[in-house]
């Protein structure tokens, strides 16, 4: 990839990438209007069921209760993973294509984790009482949380993940906000001046910045692998057939990266077009993202297969009953949607022509997002709907409220992302300059 010829030089970077600060494409307003409309509807829905109670949800009944909340929570946490993978792990591996997509992928991570955090909040029903349970002070009974509970590990993991991702993202933004400050005038100059903390771009500052960025990447790398492992332990640490399995952590991490990479592509293709960034976020960068999606898709395919095999091979009738029912029971539609979207459709990408065909890639990436949502729905549903007490078995289908709130979370995500695209550099200005040809005089010492 280092041999690729660039049509642009570093002098074009600031002027051409920061076009988003000017007047955007009219499609931008259309997209923002749609996202904000759905968001407002969702806010109204949340306000309503906060007043009247969660009983208005069709599926809010034994045995599944918060099924769609949990699904959305796991789905959105998973979406965030590609951002950290791209920004931290690919940074350590020095994969150059990440320099063009890391900024928007990191932003995606933060917004996805915010979307995930919405669901534990709204599942409480009367959220205004939730503040006490989140921070039970005064702790009159002197009772502490159960540190051996996977749910508490999850709270620690997600909070750490959000904080670290936010710090990582903002630290990367500081030099770029300095670049914006030096291009704009008036009140914008003051605002971006404050946001950039007074960054000047001295070699000494870059020296400390680079060291810190490397350490943050090194810290975020094990973190990204741990977060979805811990999310998977919410299920795997129980003794529920279909959940209690050691394959869950790697399987969840691979699935998270699959859905995240697909979401990166889903977001970047229209954004690249809207802001004329084709010369910077190039086709080969998008193809690299597709290759990563294909890799994780094959890992997920393998995990689905081995999970089924072990359910049969173990000879555990309860385990096998859950799996047989997933594939051939009343919820088989979700299962086969998951298989086709996550495993079968991505196989087209073994062909380079298909990897470069943006329409095909876009459709498959959207389908992967659908498939990954159904994967979580499928896992959580099958575990909850039939547990150890046949008397509590039931049937569950998502209703208007669950579907509406799911759409609302997408609206929240897209609203945040579109606003980010309007006010911040979509591509990291300082990092893309590093992978472009260095401005050399052609004579004298050429550095290292």
């Amino acid at each position, binding site marked *: 990839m280092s041999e690729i010829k660039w049509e642009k030089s570093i002098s074009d970077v600031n002027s051409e990438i920061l076009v988003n600060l000017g007047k955007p494409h009219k499609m931008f307003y259309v997209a923002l209007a749609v996202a904000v409309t759905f968001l407002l509807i969702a806010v109204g829905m949340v306000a309503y069921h906060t007043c009247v109670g969660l009983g208005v949800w069709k599926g809010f009944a034994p045995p599944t209760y918060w099924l769609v909340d949990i699904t959305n929570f796991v789905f959105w946490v998973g979406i965030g993973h590609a951002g950290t993978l791209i920004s931290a792990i690919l940074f350590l591996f020095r994969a150059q294509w990440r320099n063009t997509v890391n900024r928007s992928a990191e932003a995606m991570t933060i917004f996805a984790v915010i979307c995930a955090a919405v669901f534990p909040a709204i599942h409480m029903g009367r959220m205004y009482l939730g503040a006490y349970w989140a921070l039970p002070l005064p702790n009159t009974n002197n009772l502490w949380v159960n540190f051996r509970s996977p749910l508490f590990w999850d709270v620690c993991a997600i909070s750490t993940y959000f904080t670290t991702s936010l710090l990582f993202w903002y630290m990367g933004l500081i030099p770029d906000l300095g670049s914006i400050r030096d291009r704009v005038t008036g009140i914008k100059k003051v605002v971006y001046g404050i946001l950039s903390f007074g960054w000047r771009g001295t*070699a000494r500052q870059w020296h400390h910045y680079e060291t810190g960025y490397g350490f943050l990447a090194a810290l975020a790398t094990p973190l990204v692998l741990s977060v979805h492992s811990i999310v998977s332990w919410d299920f795997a640490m129980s003794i529920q057939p279909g959940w209690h399995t050691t394959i869950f952590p790697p399987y969840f991490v691979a699935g998270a990266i699959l859905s995240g990479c697909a979401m990166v592509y889903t977001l970047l293709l229209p954004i690249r077009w809207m802001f004329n960034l084709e010369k910077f976020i190039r086709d080969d960068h998008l193809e690299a993202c597709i290759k990563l999606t294909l890799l994780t898709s094959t890992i997920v395919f393998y995990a689905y297969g081995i999970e089924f095999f072990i359910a049969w091979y173990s000879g555990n009738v309860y385990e096998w009953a859950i799996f047989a029912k997933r594939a051939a029971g009343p919820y088989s539609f979700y299962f086969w949607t998951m298989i086709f979207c996550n495993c079968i459709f991505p196989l087209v990408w073994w062909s380079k022509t298909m990897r470069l065909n943006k329409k095909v890639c876009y459709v498959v990436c959207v389908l992967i997002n659908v498939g990954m949502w159904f994967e979580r729905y499928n896992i959580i549903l099958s575990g909850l709907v039939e547990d150890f007490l046949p008397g509590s078995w039931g049937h569950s289908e998502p209703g208007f409220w669950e579907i509406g709130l799911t759409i609302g979370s997408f609206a929240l995500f897209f609203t945040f992302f579109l606003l980010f695209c309007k006010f911040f550099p979509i591509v990291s200005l300082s990092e893309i300059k590093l992978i472009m040809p260095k401005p050399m005089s052609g004579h004298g010492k050429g550095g290292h």
Partner: protein
Amino acid sequence: MSKSRGVLGLFKHLDTVCNAAEKVRGRHDFKDHEVFSPTSYHEIEHSCAYPPSPVRWFTFVGAMTGTVTGFALALLCDWDWPIVVGGKTPGIYSLPAYVILGFEFTILFGAIATVIGVLVMCRLPNPKATIFDNRLTDDMFGIWVPGATVDGPQAKFLKEAGAVEIKATH
């Protein structure tokens, strides 16, 4: 005298600024000079020959504090009110479960300390930062010499070293 008074030499090319930075290093009349770059080129870092950044110590101390805090939080709560959950004895016997807390706190404190380290070492936030030239965060390199004048020997040296523009800063 204003602290930002001096001379700024603007360079267009990476190799020229690296050569100049290497030559001015250690020169008495270039004391406290600053090199500017639009991005983190390693060539400039090598030319300036900075010692390893102390940010690593912030990271290390932060991460270790996090490890101790994570384990201590769980163990001290157990000590204060021991509860057997799921047949598991609290305290030191539940240590495997607390590895997760130790790990997460290591990352959290390490990341926060790293960012604090970068801010401290870069002297940020700096509300009084003087921006010498808007092109320094775009595509130009620069060497700034405090206290120098446009007709002094430092400016002459920068010009000879390949600076495309020399300007006085106030």
